[in-house]
């Protein structure tokens, strides 16, 4: 048995050795490709792959093409750490794009940080990722800070809300986001949420929380959850006869939201970085939509596809910068290139990277229409 394992290992090593030609730029990509979040993981890889194919088809950098190494992280921090370790120390990649969950990014970026390998995360939104002093991390997702700010300003400035209720699921995404909402309400508008309700992500019933909200009589309700819990909250809100407008952030965008929530979610507004309608989108986004549909048999790209594509595009900007400056691919120069991206029109907006590695751009507000479609609110 041991001998067999050894044999397999030898073959595996030999195989990876054969694949890599001399003149390739080795880039790693990791995402949840199995388990509950496999669909999002696939979106990530599809977006990244499109950017890589496009780059390679255009001849790469002086003929040097990108070779992509893909690993599964199973949406588990431990497995994500293994994936990044393998990418850096076995596959010898010089840049990494991944992954989805903030928890996985926070744990696995310690490894790329130690190894000083430029790392861009496309989808994770946790504010802390880019605020821990890690100089090797960047992200294309709009951070919770950007998204929460956009939705709070929409509620107060555009809807004139004075009594805002916040409901959120426990865990990094919900708690982190809700705290950010609370802080922005306080700092910018000197307001306190009239209700601040938390529930377990696995909760089957949110009646108690929604009753508290009803009692507080809000004129806007911010839901900081993923779509599954968002639909549950929206249904309960309408069932208990509250008619305040509902709104939230990127985690709510999913076709399943309407499927699960039905009429209760119609009118719900949420932040987004990407709107998949070529006729209304910015030219750079429209171009992405067309290219994506060509490659993937007419499938309509979602925001995760767009942000992953952008992450790879920004990585490529870093590579180009390093090649021009140093004549080779040096980690410090690649990272410098990534952070010096300015007003670059990409799929998920015109992006300017800041010193923390966050991608700043205008945040869109989209709303659900009758029948489950989306409209661009602003």
């Amino acid at each position: 048995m041991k001998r067999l394992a050894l044999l397999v290992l030898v073959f595996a090593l030999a195989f990876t050795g054969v694949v890599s030609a001399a003149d390739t730029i080795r880039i790693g990509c990791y995402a949840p490709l199995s388990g509950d979040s496999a669909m999002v993981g696939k979106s990530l890889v599809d977006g990244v792959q499109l950017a890589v194919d496009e780059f390679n088809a255009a001849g790469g950098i002086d003929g040097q093409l990108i070779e992509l190494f893909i690993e599964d992280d199973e949406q588990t921090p431990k497995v994500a750490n293994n994936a990044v370790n393998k990418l850096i120390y076995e596959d010898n990649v010089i840049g990494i794009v991944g992954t989805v969950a903030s928890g996985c990014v926070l744990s696995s970026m310690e490894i790329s940080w130690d190894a000083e390998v430029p790392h861009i995360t496309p989808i994770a939104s946790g504010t802390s990722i880019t605020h821990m002093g890690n100089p090797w991390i960047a992200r294309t997702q709009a951070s919770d800070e950007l998204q929460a700010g956009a939705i709070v300003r929409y509620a107060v400035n555009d809807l004139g809300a004075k009594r805002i209720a916040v409901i959120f699921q426990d865990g990094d995404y919900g708690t982190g986001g809700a705290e950010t909402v609370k802080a922005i309400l306080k700092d910018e508008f000197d307001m306190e949420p009239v209700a601040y309700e938390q529930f377990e992500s696995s909760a089957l019933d949110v009646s108690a929380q929604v009753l508290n909200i009803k009692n507080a009589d809000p004129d806007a309700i911010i839901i900081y959850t993923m779509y599954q819990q968002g639909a549950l909250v929206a249904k309960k809100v309408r069932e208990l006869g509250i008619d305040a407008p509902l709104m939230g952030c990127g985690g709510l965008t999913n076709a399943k939201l309407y499927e699960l929530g039905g009429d209760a979610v119609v009118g719900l507004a949420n932040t987004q970085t990407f709107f998949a309608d070529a006729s209304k989108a910015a030219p750079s986004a429209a171009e992405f939509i067309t290219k994506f549909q060509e490659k993937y048999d007419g499938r309509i790209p979602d925001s995760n596809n767009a942000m992953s594509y952008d992450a790879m595009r920004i990585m490529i900007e870093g590579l180009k910068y390093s090649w021009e400056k140093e004549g080779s691919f040096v980690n410090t120069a690649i990272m410098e290139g990534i952070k010096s991206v300015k007003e670059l029109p990409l799929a998920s907006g015109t992006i300017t990277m800041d010193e923390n590695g966050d991608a700043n751009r205008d945040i869109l507000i989209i709303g659900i229409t009758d029948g489950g479609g989306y409209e661009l609110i602003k």
Partner: protein
Amino acid sequence: MVNFIQALIQGVAMGSLYGLIAIGYVLIYNAWGILNFAQGDMVMVGAFAVLVTHMRLGLPMWLAIPVALLICMLIGFLIEITAFRPLIDAIQQRRLIATIGIGIFLRNLVRVVFGADPYYFPPIFDNTPYKVGSLTIVPQNIWNMVIGFLLIGALTLFLKRTTMGKSMRATAQDREAARLMGINVKRSMSLTFIIASALGGLAGMLICPVFYVVPTLGTSMGNKGFSSALFGGISSDGGSMLGGIVLGLLEAIGATTISSAFQSSIAYAVLFLVLIFMPNGIFGKKESRKV
């Protein structure tokens, strides 16, 4: 006050579902002397069974539910003969681990077949809320309560009045003595398992219109059901139903009167206290076998 009553209604409605699952734990514990940690996953199996019969096969609801129940019973029976019966004389830990293993297997099997995303399920009863004064009543919740109590009544009658039920109770009390009295022990143990699986499955069918159908349903429901069984006393069928309602009420009232952030903490803190001072649960009989 209105809010408090509203919270009470929601608490009892959820609690009666917890109770249905709890009875499954209790039945199997008494007959087999072991906690079946796959009981929660039978809830999930029930939800998916009715999803298939009603949404995929398009059977009308009155037919879809009985067919789904039969599927649950069949799956329960299969679990019994593959993972329980062969291990009947094995040491306790092995048997316990087998039940955990079956749970993991069922969850992942369903995830592979149906995917991880939740499915919508239409209301079985009318789901449009109506108003009584300033209270909002959702018919499905009331029905869940009524069905929960009817079933526990029916089960009690079955166990106390029918020969089959009596032989199940006899087997639960003392397997060897029951065998000597000429009771078909194997059959009554299987029957217990099948009934417990059906009860779990039914709870799943009742929860999916107010929640969704999702592979992880069993984990959350299973935990609640297990806690309810401990609350009520693992040896008492009726007690576990009341245990479920106590748990549901604690969750609802704790979240509305104290803080929603501590919803589960409050409920489980009370559970710890109960177990410290009344190790047999609130309604459990004193006996040597404890959890």
